[in-house]
């Protein structure tokens, strides 16, 4: 499982790196970026789903 951010849709709402700092970081403009290659380890699956479900811009997707 991987998390992906659609950079065109991201406006820096800040929810993903707030909910799952293990999976997401922010750049110097405050936009969300995926850490590493976005691989979600089993213990982070729930956080990944919450990050996806809380993004107001629908910018996050999960690839199974």
């Amino acid at each position, binding site marked *: 499982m991987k998390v992906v951010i659609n950079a065109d849709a991201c406006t820096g*709402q800040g929810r993903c790196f707030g*909910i799952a700092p293990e999976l997401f970081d922010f750049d110097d403009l*405050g936009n969300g970026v995926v850490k590493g290659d976005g691989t979600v380890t089993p213990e982070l699956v729930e956080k990944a789903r919450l990050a996806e479900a809380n*993004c107001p811009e629908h910018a996050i997707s999960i690839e199974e």
Partner: protein
Amino acid sequence: MSHTKPLVEDFATDFDHADPQWVNNPYPIWEDLRTRCPVAHTDRYGGAWFPATHELVSRVAKDTENFTSRSVVMSNLRPTDEDLPAPIGIAPPITSDPPFHAIARRLVLPAFSPGVVNALEPQIRALCNSLLDDMGDAAVVNGGTQFAQYIPVGVIQQMLGFPLEDIEMFLQIVIDVLDSIDSTAEDRQATGDKNRAYFEKQIQDHIDNPRDDFTTYLLNAEIAGTKLELDHVIGTILLTLVAGIDTTWSAISSSLWHLAQNPDDLARLVNEPELIDVAVEEFLRFYAPVTMARLVAKDHDFNGCPMKKDDWVLLGFPAANRDPEVFEDADKFIIDRRENRHVAFGLGIHRCAGSNLARLELKVAIQEFIKRYPTFTLENPSEVTFSPGQVRGARNLPIRVK
């Protein structure tokens, strides 16, 4: 503020966000409009529209072709194209449209990025505690006028590097811009001129004595190798003051208003401090303070409504946050709501640039208030007042703390 306007009888055809019914409790009005319209209209303010659903609010927010941001505060002062020289606008980047918007926004975002903002946490915590200390051992305190309002104004004053003794004046500037929507165009113009003179004085002081603050940052900033025009610097300072103070103040005071009336939520927050992050998002959803505005950029049909150039559109993010199509039990405050795609900070390219700061201030303010006062109740519910206009929050908030 004048109250000579007739009271609204039907919000679908004659809405007014300064009407007492809207100011005191807008939620039933929005619910009614969502099912009945869903785009309301009024001839007031020279003509305006109000889409009441999440879907339509989202569509307006993301459509920068048909809607312009050159004026975002709906008032009787209805600007013409000549009043708003493109591309800078009155308060960049919030009043800027593409393509200039991206340039003006890129300039300010680094100053409000999470890394920079998070470093302010100890300072915000200290400010909250000094306000709480000032309340002494009073049995009744004012969560609005003694606490909530002084947190963002204190943060912004330090950020801009403006004199501490001018704090009361900043609050007045905010009220002038946002609350006085029923003032005449002439009055609003006169106030704008007075504020500009003050900003010019502070800017001169920063030119003479550069220091490590946001004002100096703006004075040093460049677009394509050229320093910003004075109008741009003043506009962004005005934006920082107006958008950074009333908004967060409102979010804090409305959250305290909620906790004062919902002892179960207060007890959960006190006993389960780890809930604070989801609770903050639910406070932001349920009591989203900010309604934005746009001007229609060109005649077009919007969801069956014949929108004309220069009509206002009131952009109801707080209404979108209560749309049952998007939120389960939308009219219920659920302190541990885990899925919460709220739009309190807007949507699209104008997402609130200060959202990281606002969220941090709200979190720290609630944490410190409930640490000091683990139980509290509303002292006199009938005395609570809410601000009129596009930024809604509790103003007078008497709270019994012992």
